[in-house]
């Protein structure tokens, strides 16, 4: 079955969406991410959508769901690389992706996630 690859890089999951997704593929990705977080104990999820030419309400909801589910499982999600035309359209559509952290580039997204991981360990130390 057709799937969007979920890559593991240390404590992070990397996902690059490069195809025009039909709805079932988007739902499959949602399942795969949660499964991988629990299997690998990932603490961050980076989703690169720079190749996506549109984000409609369905894809928007999928991104929000992944962020929410990951958070419950102890992982932060950052969505990176949204094209300006996509951002304009998404807001006009009525979605501003509340609850989803975003960054302009993969690099900036990585920094956010590594920052979140470091903060986490520091907190643990201060608690101990």
């Amino acid at each position: 079955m057709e799937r969007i690859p979920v890559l593991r890089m240390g404590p992070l999951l990397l996902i690059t969406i490069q195809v025009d997704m039909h709805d079932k593929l988007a739902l499959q990705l949602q399942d795969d991410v949660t499964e991988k977080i629990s299997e690998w104990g990932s603490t961050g999820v980076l989703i690169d959508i720079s190749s996506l030419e549109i984000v409609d309400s369905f894809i928007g909801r999928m991104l929000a769901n992944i962020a929410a589910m990951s958070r419950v499982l102890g992982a932060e999600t950052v969505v990176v690389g949204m094209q300006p035309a996509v951002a304009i359209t998404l807001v006009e559509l009525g979605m501003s992706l509340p609850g989803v952290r975003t960054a302009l580039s993969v690099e900036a997204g990585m920094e956010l996630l590594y920052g979140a991981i470091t903060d986490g360990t520091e907190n643990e130390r201060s608690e101990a």
Partner: protein
Amino acid sequence: MSVQKREVLPIKVSNDVVIARQKVRQLAVELRFSLVDQTKLVTAASELARNALDHGRGGSMTVEVLINGGRSGLKMIFEDQGPGIADIEQALKDGYTSGGGMGLGLGGSKRLVNEFSIESEVGKGTRVTAVRWR
């Protein structure tokens, strides 16, 4: 106003929504819409095609290239033979959903185009027409 080109695509399965998006993109590029306008048209097509599939049990999309004087435009008509919409005004409100969605499909799509109309008869089906001018 004249119709320069007319195509009808089925919307019966999930992948037909992807094909509908690609057709609208192709025509929007041919009509030399700006990138933002292309994105708005394709996003509206995606929402409306999904509505026809999920709520209308499938149907079709008709796309027309319009010429009105010196102006060109793209018209999209989504038709289904589903249960119809009893209260169109309510269906257009943001946040109203009959399914599991976010309820942005109809109202959101309306904001992405210049002209928008819904004709619906309960038990017979729904026709949504959307036009964006260049």
